[in-house]
């Protein structure tokens, strides 16, 4: 699996969701409550579908771009991606069932199976990257302070991974819009506090989920800045998101194969 794919999956599938929260004071219990709410809002027990566009920039120059459709069924922990553009990627697909990730290569008409033990798609990404957010379980939060991000007043919080947690980023910083409680900025840092990546969320789509019975927030766009290799970055654009139920038998090899006959 392309690492680019993995990166957008990490953000597109995690669906960080945030609902309104009027009364706030960053005492420790309230901070904990906020993080629990962040996790809760990411939970989407129903189906999800979205068209995703990903653009990779290397040293300021666009080197790769593709478009895909993402399907997700959180109740069964199933998801599927079908690449539609460009021609060289079209028809390729990924199907997640149980602990397996099946990769489909239409040029060969063949499938490959990987498990989370071997790293997803030969990358160093972990299964946890694809699972729903468990910030409250895996991290200890700390309120840093109120700051200004562009014209927005934001709450800056840091999250340190708990010793037993198997997480991709040991240290996170989040900037949450004080009014709407949407994440606007996220930093991923190493154990030594070295900044690795910065992610910006300039827009959020609010949708009502019937299965959840509440609003779900979906990022419309994510800008990922590689802080190690300066000039490198990824832009993810999510469009036509839909939370309505998908057909029962869609998460199958036969369905994915049928798309590139």
């Amino acid at each position: 699996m392309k690492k680019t794919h993995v990166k957008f999956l990490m953000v597109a599938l995690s669906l960080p969701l945030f609902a309104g929260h009027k009364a706030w004071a960053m005492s420790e219990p309230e901070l904990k409550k906020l993080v629990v709410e962040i996790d809760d809002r990411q939970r989407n027990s129903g189906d999800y579908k979205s068209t995703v566009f990903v653009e990779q920039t290397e040293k300021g120059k666009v080197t790769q771009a593709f478009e895909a459709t993402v399907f997700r069924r959180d109740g069964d922990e199933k998801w599927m991606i079908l690449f539609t553009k460009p021609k060289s990627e079209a028809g390729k697909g990924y199907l997640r069932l149980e602990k397996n990730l099946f990769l489909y290569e239409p040029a060969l008409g063949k499938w490959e199976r990987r498990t989370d033990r071997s790293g997803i798609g030969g990358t160093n990404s972990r299964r946890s990257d694809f699972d729903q957010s468990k910030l409250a379980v895996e991290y200890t939060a700390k309120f840093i302070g109120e700051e200004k991000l562009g014209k927005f007043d934001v709450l800056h919080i840091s999250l340190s991974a708990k010793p037993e947690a198997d997480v991709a980023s040991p240290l996170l910083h989040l900037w949450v819009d004080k009014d709407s409680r949407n994440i606007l900025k996220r930093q991923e840092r190493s154990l030594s506090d070295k900044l690795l990546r910065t992610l910006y969320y300039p827009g959020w789509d609010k949708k009502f989920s019937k299965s959840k019975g509440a609003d779900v927030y979906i990022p419309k766009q994510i800008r990922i800045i590689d802080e190690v290799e300066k000039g490198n970055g990824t832009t993810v654009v999510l469009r036509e998101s839909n939370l309505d139920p998908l057909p029962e038998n869609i998460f199958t090899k036969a369905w994915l194969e049928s798309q590139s006959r």
Partner: protein
Amino acid sequence: MFEQLKVLLLVAIRNLALHKVKTLVVGGILLAGSFLVVFGLSLLGSVESTMSQSIIGSVAGHLQVYSAEARDDLALFGSGFFGRDDLGEIPKFEDVKAELLKNPNVANVVPLGFENALLARGNVLDDLFERFRATVKSGNQTEIDSSIEVVKANLSNIRSDLENELKISGVPADIKKQIADVDTALSNEFWAKLKQDSETSLIFLESKIAPLSGEKEPLYLRYMGTNPSQFADVFKKFKVIDGENIPAGERGILLSNRIYETQIKNIVARGFDSLRKGLVEQRKTIAGDVALKTTATDLPKQYLEVAVYLTGSKRADIVASLKSFLKASDDNLETLVKQFLTIDDKNFAERYDYFYKKIAPEIRLYPFKVGDTINLRSYTRSGYLKTVPLKIYGLYQFSGLESSDLAGAFNFVDMVSYRELYGRMSSEGQKELDELRKQIEVKAVETGSIEDSLFGAGAQIESRSENKSSASQAQQAAAAAGGGKQTLQFKRAVSGKYDPRELDSGLIINAAVLLKNPRLLSITRLELESQLKNAKLNLKVVDWKQASGTLGQLVSVIRAVLLTAVGIILIVAMAIINNAIMMTTLERTREIGTLRAIGAQRAFVLRMFFVETLTISLLATLAGSLLAVTLVSFLGVRGVAAPSDFVSFLFGGPRLYPSVSTGLAFVAPLIVAILAQIFTMYPAFMASRISPAAAMQDRE
């Protein structure tokens, strides 16, 4: 003069004969030193020569050219460090080639670029279920029924293995869950359901049962992008042994036969091959060799790698044949295979023959063969994984280096596919990308001002949008699945062709330069550096030794170690000579005094000692040299067997045939003799100062 020399020689011989122990010690050390120099340097010279042929003749050429902006040194055979080397890039090979060919000593310039690729491999059950899926799809009920029996037989064996595992497992709940899954797959209801809803049953086998056979690590393939036909023309040791070279204008890969046989072949067959090499070629025993014992112990555990391929009538035939061969009564194929694969020193030969005659033709010996297409997956320069399907055009090897892992380390792909795996976009791809970006309308944002651009005035963070109706989404996807309204369906364009001129134009990482006269290598390297600099091409030029990485430095290191050892031996020898002559001088004070009393000049005494040392040193060093020449000549005829596959690369083949440098055979003894003379000077001078009176006093 001649008479005096004769007398001095006789005196020297008499003295050497008189002091036998001293003569033997000094002579022995000088002989050993001379032998070591001539023998060691002759062998080393021969290894250097064969190694240079191996390196130059495989991928390095005489010189290598790469970007001066590279952060790492070029190391074709590995730098000895993990990770990916940063060698920069040469954006326009055509410019570099034109410039290099201006030098009259440059015969050829070959474009290159190398990387590591991943080749994912499923386990035996993945393979079994993949074939089962194809059979189910074919709709041939007879074949489906036969395949079901094979699947069931394998499920029963897996269940039995899990039961054994359960007895020793620390997490029995997991094993019990796996056994329950296998029981589901063994139930009649499961197979009855296959007829109604095959996809659900197949997915169950593929996602729940296949992982029980463990995970095969992906195969890491080192690949080299080049102009395939030019490469074959220039590197004469390169030979395609199966299939054909990648034709110009076609995308494809040539696999290394060494990798094909030692890494890709069926694991049971590899086990037999490895045991054969150890037992027959290296004359080891399973009982006495740890590595062979491990291979033999592991073989029965791989029974599924044989059993899953024996389906239908093959299965019954092999059961009957194995029962007769093993004189066994069991009818279970898997049990028979396990028994057959239990190898020891006594049964190896007949089982090896049986395996290749009876079993190998019935199983899948290689997961892919010449003519198949494989998915080569590699990280692009910016760290993203790129997949390119490539046809296997053939298998190759380098003549004389068939058993070398180093020479067979690369798999060759056409330069156009290399560039795609590297992440370089074709003009067509770039055009498509531009259209896609235009369609999506992604606003370009400067990293430095990104926060103001995204969150400044006018920014709106949140908006509400409605889902499409449920019916719409479900209908849309269902229609796509059923081939109705094809909202997602498309035909994927796959093109394997390109303009052959693309091979020699565009991006490469390094280039091999072949010279008309290799003796002018150093001069040509300097000339090329100057030429490239004048042409404003920021490139480095290195010789084959530097280009081959740590391997190229190996001979220099061995030479340094050998010369250090020889140096130490010589220093010890000279100290002993010096000491021995000093002792002799003291012992012979009366004799020297007497000689001086009867009219011998001081010069005569000096000469007496010099001639004595010269005689022993020349005799000993020439004898050492002669011994070394005889031994090297003998080995030159008989050959020295390479003790390992790595050494066979250094030897340029399975045996090294060393030769003696005539100059070395004479020069080495001469140098040792001169050194001995120098170290004789001080004691000889001391002896010459002995006066007759002193000799008389000594007598008293």
